[in-house]
């Protein structure tokens, strides 16, 4: 099966959104779920969370940041071209406990935070969003977040180039102290999720994190995406990707995410050579 790219949006130098034709998937997708892309015959299987979907028009969207060889190749595809394989929806949808929510998104995790915030609002909840990034240029979907009927939109950047200077835990701590929220959802880099969890724990605040380990099949068969939660081995693909963030073994997740760092460099060089130079021909 092949899936046509209907629309390609570029948010920043390295952040893109694809809208692809996938009518059956669009009927079933729910916030917090993900899909797995295999770009072409030689491609690897890579998971991306749904950013948006439309059952009437028969499309789904996902946002990705160029962080390695596969995302680099993917970013070179244009509207009208096809992605060879897309599997989904996978994983459990985010549980929408009624309440006063704070949704935290860091870096490319903002692409996941956005549909979750929107779904929480649609379910009648109050939602505050904290956006975090290293610097202004890495903030994505800011306009889209601004258009949502949020209680509050707080932006933090490590270098102070936009919003508050610092990290997401400072505003999170204030919200906890003010009892302005009673549920937290966090998605982003491991340190961000880990420290958000530690902050919430201090205030007995429930916090769910959406985890992003390396995956292969995405259906619970291979065990690649296993994470330790509350001392138990869980599979992010079928038991998650959402887990109680205070119970996640972050060191474990971080180590496993780095399993192929060396290979990733080799793949990147390979892709760059394919793209321009002729040294392998």
């Amino acid at each position, binding site marked *: 099966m092949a899936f046509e790219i209907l629309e390609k949006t570029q948010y920043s130098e390295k952040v893109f959104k694809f809208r692809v034709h996938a009518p059956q998937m669009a009927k079933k997708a729910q916030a917090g779920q993900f899909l797995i892309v295999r770009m072409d015959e030689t491609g690897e299987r890579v998971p991306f969370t749904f950013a948006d979907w439309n059952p009437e028009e028969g499309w789904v969207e996902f946002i990705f940041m160029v962080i390695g060889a596969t995302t680099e190749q993917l970013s070179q595809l244009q509207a009208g071209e096809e992605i060879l394989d897309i599997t989904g929806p996978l994983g459990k949808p985010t549980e929408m406990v009624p309440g006063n929510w704070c949704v935290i998104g860091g870096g490319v995790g903002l692409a996941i935070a956005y549909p979750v915030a929107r779904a929480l609002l649609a379910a009648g909840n109050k939602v505050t969003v904290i956006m975090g990034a290293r610097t202004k240029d890495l903030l994505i979907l800011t306009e889209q977040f601004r258009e949502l009927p949020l209680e509050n939109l707080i932006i933090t950047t490590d270098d102070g180039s936009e919003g508050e200077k610092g990290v997401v835990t400072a505003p999170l701590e204030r919200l906890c102290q003010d009892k302005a929220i009673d549920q937290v959802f966090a998605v982003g880099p491991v340190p961000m999720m880990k420290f958000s969890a530690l902050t919430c724990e201090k205030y007995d605040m429930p916090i769910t994190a959406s985890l992003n380990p390396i995956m292969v099949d995405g259906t619970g068969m291979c065990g690649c995406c296993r994470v330790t939660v509350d001392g138990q081995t869980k599979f992010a693909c079928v038991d998650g990707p959402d887990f109680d963030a205070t119970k996640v073994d972050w060191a474990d997740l971080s*180590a496993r995410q780095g399993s192929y760092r060396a290979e990733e460099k080799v*793949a990147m*060089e390979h892709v760059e050579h394919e793209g321009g130079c002729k040294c392998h021909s």
Partner: protein
Amino acid sequence: MPLVNGKYKANNKDPRVPANEVPAEVRAHNFEPVDTGYTYEDAIEEANRCLDCKRPRCVAGCPVGIDIPTFIRQIREEDEEAALATIRDSNMLPSVCGRVCPQENQCEGSCILNKTGDDPIAIGQLERYLGDQSESLAKTPVCKPANGKKVAVVGSGPSGIACAGALAREGFDVTVYEAFQTGGGVLTYGIPEFRLPKAIVKREIDGLKDLGVKFEYDAVVGRLYDADEFFNEYDYDAMYLAVGAGLPKFLNIPGENLPGVFCANEYLTRVNLMKAMLFPEYMTPIKHGKNVVVFGGGNVAMDAARTALRLGAETVTLAYRRTEKEMPARVAELHHAKEEGVRVLELVSPIAFEAGEDGFVAKVKLERMELGEPDESGRRRPVVIPDSEFELPCDVAVTAIGTNANPFAEMAADVKLNKWGYIEADENGRTSDPRVWAGGDIVTGAATVILAMGAGKKAAADMAEKLLAE
């Protein structure tokens, strides 16, 4: 054909025609087939050893009851087309089963020649030989006219394939839904190329397409589709659930989640399905360990160990808590693995993995075991020897200790499960939902290709009987 007074007289005292195996030192470094299969002459010579028993034990030993003496006689009579048709009456996948069935526990283990001190007939080799001729022999059998009934088969592994093929022959409109990008299930992601070339799996799937079976890939039933949708919107009359065994089991010891520690399913899927041995031309990476330790004693453990060798490991150790005698693997696989240089370490059990400075697994701690009283499985239970700890260097570890039930069984349809999460189904594959049949590993727990196929075939026959009577 050896004749005495015009009557066939078996050459059963002749030694069994040996397999044509590539030398171990060559094959251990590539993914090419280990055994190139019988030639025509080999097949005739081996067929001439068969006693053609009146009451053949081999047939009783075959889980799907292939008429073995008849197909062997047809080989002898140089009618390969008829011989293949005989097998296909009971088994749609002779090229696959000839390669992966544990013949020593089934047909060959039951062969009467074992009792007379002779080598049993190489039934697996003969079956494989015929299967491999199928391109030059008769095309796929003709289907009955369309009967107007639609069936959704979930999973394209051996059970799904067998069911789909049998239903198509009966005139059903069949679509197979597969979660992966290509078909074959465990035949594709699990069993390595050197043991079962993927071209053969593809040929079997193409054969089903010739019968009119449709395949939808990237389709995770239970997420992308569900049973209600199948019955109400897509007008299916029945469903066959063959989603396979799922979640790998773990050792549950410290360090098991370190990078470099794999479940066999992941290790094999990266190589077999995603072609990680061709990285970076293929984008999926795999760890190339120097000192690889594989835990387990089944076929999956053998496949992982032999794959590690082919990925360039300097040492590959197969660590097993019982002895070689108790290993559930096919005899041929263990034999091949050892020939290729896999070291078998019996009576040991891992207690922890430890990381090196780079954070990747660097060694494994084990303890020695001895065999005690037999357990429920009838095998002698391994018992720890106190103070017997030792270490092995290990930069890639692969665990192959079995699987638990697939969670998609429950998501795909509302059928009754047993306490372990497997689907409850009767001998014909009927489940608690009268529109849903099930078979293969999702009913029995991890078993063999041939049993899964047998279940698919039985369910197809039962579906035909029930649906066509409606």
